[in-house]
């Protein structure tokens, strides 16, 4: 990273093996920093949930927080899918919490501790892509399982004039097939953009200080900008997790209830 006082803003997204694992299908499966941070997310999520498991009649602060999030996801599903959406709660919960914790963990300033390099799991297209693929598979499986070939009627909106049906059908199928990619890309890009922006301005700070003279003003402005972007990014972390979960419920709603 630090050659000639320069910061490579892409370095933070590199997946590096921590220790070698085993080979699967001819590919090395090593325990990487990405996997490490996934497990950190898992551990934090477990601690968070376990703290709300006291099951007291009069809840403490922690229990209120956990119950609030569970209630929030229950409400999201109830509003988007309806009462028969209850069976999707575990998946939506998994999505929302995993993404939220990964996003927030990536924003935490662990970098100030020497030797620790924070890694945002959700800034990897492989991760967001797999999550989107699972959500999309659920939509497909539920749709064809429940409605069979009638599921294709999803692609023909009500009241479409007969001659328009083939064209509309093509457009709707295309937009349907784009869904998993838009789902995955949205989260991935939102995460990566903020992180790159912060790193770029961080490199400005170092360069400005190295240059000396009156350029410390630029360093100061850059730091202020970083503070604002960090605050904005914290908001984006929560919003992107919510958007991913919300869109998944909406897509599942299409499959569950057709129209």
């Amino acid at each position, binding site marked *: 990273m630090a050659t000639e006082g320069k910061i490579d803003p892409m370095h933070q997204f590199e997946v590096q093996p921590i220790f070698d694992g085993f080979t699967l*299908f001819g*590919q090395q*499966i090593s325990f*990487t920093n990405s*996997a490490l941070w996934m497990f950190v*997310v*898992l551990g934090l999520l477990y601690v968070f949930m376990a703290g709300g498991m006291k*099951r007291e009649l009069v809840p403490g602060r922690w229990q209120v927080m956990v119950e609030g999030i569970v209630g929030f996801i229950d409400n999201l599903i109830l509003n988007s899918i309806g009462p028969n959406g209850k069976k999707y709660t575990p998946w939506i919960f998994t999505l929302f919490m995993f993404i939220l914790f990964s996003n927030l963990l990536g924003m935490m300033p662990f970098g100030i501790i020497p030797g620790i390099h924070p890694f945002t799991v959700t800034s990897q297209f*492989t991760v967001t892509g797999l999550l989107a693929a699972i959500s999309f598979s659920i939509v497909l499986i539920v749709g064809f399982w429940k409605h069979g070939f009638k599921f294709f009627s999803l692609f023909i909106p009500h009241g479409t004039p007969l001659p328009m049906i083939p064209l509309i059908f093509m457009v709707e199928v295309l937009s349907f097939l784009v869904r998993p990619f838009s789902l995955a890309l949205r989260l991935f890009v939102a995460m990566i953009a903020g992180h790159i922006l912060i790193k770029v301005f961080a490199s400005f700070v170092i360069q400005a200080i190295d240059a000396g003279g009156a350029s410390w003003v630029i360093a100061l402005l850059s730091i202020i900008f970083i503070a604002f972007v960090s605050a904005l990014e914290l908001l984006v972390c929560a919003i992107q997790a919510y958007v991913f979960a919300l869109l998944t419920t909406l897509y599942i709603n299409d499959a569950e209830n057709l129209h």
Partner: protein
Amino acid sequence: MPQISQLMEVYLGQFFWLLIVIGIIYFGIARNMVPKISKTVDDRQKRITDDLAAAQAGQDKAEQIEADYRTSINEARAAAIEFVNEAKAKAASKNEAAIKRAETAIGKKADEADAELKAAQSSAMKEIEAVAAEAAQAIVKTVSGAKVTATEAKKAVKAAF
């Protein structure tokens, strides 16, 4: 961009670890812990609803008891007033009867006394007349010397009275 340049070497590893983590979250937390938390919330909600219903029932019961108490006390009061009025009327009529009886008794006694008085008066009058007649006879005899019969004297005395 490492996400693209590294894609072919890391994607299987990423999928592998992600599936493990997601699987643990899904089966361990989302399917195991979350329903318990939801149940806690539901139980609390149910408890609150039940308690509120019980409180409402208790209040209704208390109000019912108060209403019953009120009607019974009103009935008792009405009965008491009626009883008192009856007793008053009875006492009044008894008194009246007693007074009437006493009055008649007193009237009778007064009449008797009156009659006795009158009899006594008349007898006294007769005696006085007799004495006066005798006295008149004696006075006339001594004053004029004329003889006056007892009947004449009596007539004269009666006329003088």
